[in-house]
């Protein structure tokens, strides 16, 4: 016996693309208005002694195009193989290289665990001015077993072919000085890819050595 399944047009509601079906506000009918929230998971990459972690539109289920006007990369428990390595990001603007021209700012807030120093400051060593280098989005990481870096990078409208592409970073790290002093350090980096070509891929890597462990998760914001 053939099994009859209810088709999309079997319900007493007008089908609406991409909408979920719920009960209406009076609980006496159906409606197709639920959207499931504005923040959508796209892809998680997990580092395992990784030289780079790359999000490439159209590859491995990654979406990084006009589908969303805003993307958020969340980095969690980034652990460096090499002491004092910094997390960096590169943006791809049409070629195979992550070399989109960037101008950005970088400032920080720190406090040493031994209470020997604290403050905020702008770091000219962390910013870029019309550079094709990777952008610093983290500070010199302590690579002790329990130390790591967390934070987010918002990338706005990467598919625009009219405007430059702005990004905003905030993170908190287990920072270590060259003398071995450990601190909590907050990082604020922001800037733009000074290109009108679409950005279709973002790559993360450390300034030296591998990303020993950690995750970077990409979300799209409706």
């Amino acid at each position: 016996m053939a099994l009859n399944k209810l088709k999309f047009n079997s319900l007493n509601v007008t089908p609406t693309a991409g909408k979920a079906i719920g009960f209406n506000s009076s609980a006496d009918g159906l409606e197709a208005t639920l959207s499931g929230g504005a923040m959508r998971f796209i892809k998680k990459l997990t580092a395992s002694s990784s030289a780079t972690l790359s999000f490439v539109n159209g590859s491995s289920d990654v979406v990084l195009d006009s589908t969303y006007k805003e993307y958020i990369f969340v980095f969690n428990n980034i652990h460096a193989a090499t002491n004092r390595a910094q997390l960096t990001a590169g943006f791809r603007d049409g070629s195979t290289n992550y070399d989109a021209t960037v101008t950005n700012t970088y400032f920080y807030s720190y406090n040493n665990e031994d209470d020997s120093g604290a403050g905020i400051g702008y770091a000219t060593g962390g910013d870029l001015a019309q550079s094709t280098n990777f952008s610093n989005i983290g500070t010199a990481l302590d690579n002790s077993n329990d130390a790591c870096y967390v934070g987010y990078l918002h990338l706005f409208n990467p598919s625009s072919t009219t405007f430059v592409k702005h990004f905003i970073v905030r993170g908190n790290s287990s920072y270590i000085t060259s003398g071995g002093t450990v601190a909590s350090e907050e990082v604020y980096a922001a800037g733009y890819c000074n290109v009108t070509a679409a950005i279709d891929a973002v790559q993360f890597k450390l300034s030296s050595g591998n990303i020993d462990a950690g995750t970077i998760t990409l979300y799209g914001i409706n």
Partner: protein
Amino acid sequence: MALTKFNFNSFDLTTAASKGLAFNSSANGFETAVEGSMTLIKTLTASSSATLSFVDGSSSVVLDNTYPVYLFKYINIHPATDSTNFSFQANASGGSGYNETITSTYFKAEHDEGDSATALSYDTDFDQAQGTGFQTLVGGLGNGNDESASGQLYLFNPSSTTFVKHFFGVSQYYHKSNYSNSHRAGGYFNTTSAIDEIQFKMSSGNIDAGTIKLYGIKDS
């Protein structure tokens, strides 16, 4: 007349655990609904409250490895006492007391209503270097009827037993001296024990009113 109910397998799609039912992108078929990544877990509302606590496994609170990132949003926090600080601390799994070791930073931007003073500065009064006190998120909050603080606080991977637990927050509020203040706190609980309880309170007096919401952000 008998009433016919449709069961889970009555619809023309492959069922998927814990997913909703949605129309596809062409509106000509069914598909499982795409979920949002940010889920409201719990809302606590202050009413002359000494503390507001989010405890994993209690009162429907989830604060474990279900989510890798948690986000607290505090809205219109109004203190009973003038010029007090809004703060938070954690209790590790199996521990007692909100007294985990914190190293943190704290800086602020401020501007008075009279347009006579502005500042951007680090505030050593509110940071901690391996301290166990409550971490200030808002310093010097006024208690006038229309004065309050709002902001948000991220907590990363509190269930980790490998890494310290990082957090950072931003607050916007009405300072007791009629300033607009924007304060930023960031740091870590310097423990490899899992954190499964977070408590908010004022440095003195009750939280007269306000709401704190806890969200989980999934990564799958």
